[in-house]
């Protein structure tokens, strides 16, 4: 039964976990905005999802998209600063804030998708007598 439920929720359950993971990494960057020598990191969502759910492929719909090549692509990558600072800190608050907001939004949309599935499941269980 649990297996069926996993299948029913599909990739969204994994995606939700990874998005929350990514928010943790970006929150760490924001927290260390003033720590000398701190190197900002980010989670490669596509690579992490491939690792967690190998049967799911993120499709490349444009030639400008980065092509996911190696299977061993690291899930955590260092952020390349636009303008490196003297104290070795590579956190750029504007970048981090945008990434954080984007991840929060994507987390919300994944929640919405999951909520939809749960609602149809409940409707099916109740026999739609509401």
């Amino acid at each position: 039964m649990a297996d069926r439920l996993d299948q029913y929720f599909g990739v969204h359950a994994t995606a939700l976990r990874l998005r929350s993971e990514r928010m943790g990494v970006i929150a760490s960057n924001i927290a260390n905005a003033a720590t000398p020598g701190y190197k900002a990191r980010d989670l490669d969502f596509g690579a992490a999802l491939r690792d967690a759910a190998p049967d799911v492929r993120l499709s490349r719909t444009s030639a400008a998209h980065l092509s996911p090549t190696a299977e061993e692509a690291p899930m955590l990558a260092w952020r390349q600063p636009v303008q490196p600072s003297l104290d070795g800190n590579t956190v750029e608050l504007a970048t981090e804030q945008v990434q954080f907001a984007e991840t929060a939004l994507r987390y919300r949309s994944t929640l919405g998708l999951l909520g939809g599935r749960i609602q149809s499941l409940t409707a099916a269980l109740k026999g739609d007598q509401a």
Partner: protein
Amino acid sequence: MTLGIFDIAGRAMTAQLVRLNSSASNLANAGAVSATAEGAYRPLKPVFAAQYEGNTGRATVSVLGVVQADAAPQRRHEPGHPLADAQGYVHVSAVDSNAELVEMVETARQYRNAIEVLETAKSLTLETLRLGR
């Protein structure tokens, strides 16, 4: 123990508050006068260090301590000052008010960022709890 977003942002706020306190102390003591060079106020600086949680990519910030900057106090000739020494000199604390003000603004901005992170994490957690209702 795993670091949640709340821990990360909460400790960032603590660190920024320590930084704000040091700035406030420095600004309050800008221009403070002492009878001896040793007794003069020296600017306080917090030392931040990243605290990593293994290889998970999560890290919070901790304050290793607050150190006294070794900026030498200024010697100023003021024979009429009640604290002046035999040669008529007083020692003024070496606080750079402009730098401290900039520090204060930056601290406030980063504190605000941490609050923003907390609020986003809170609302997302609440939404997750309401999932499927």
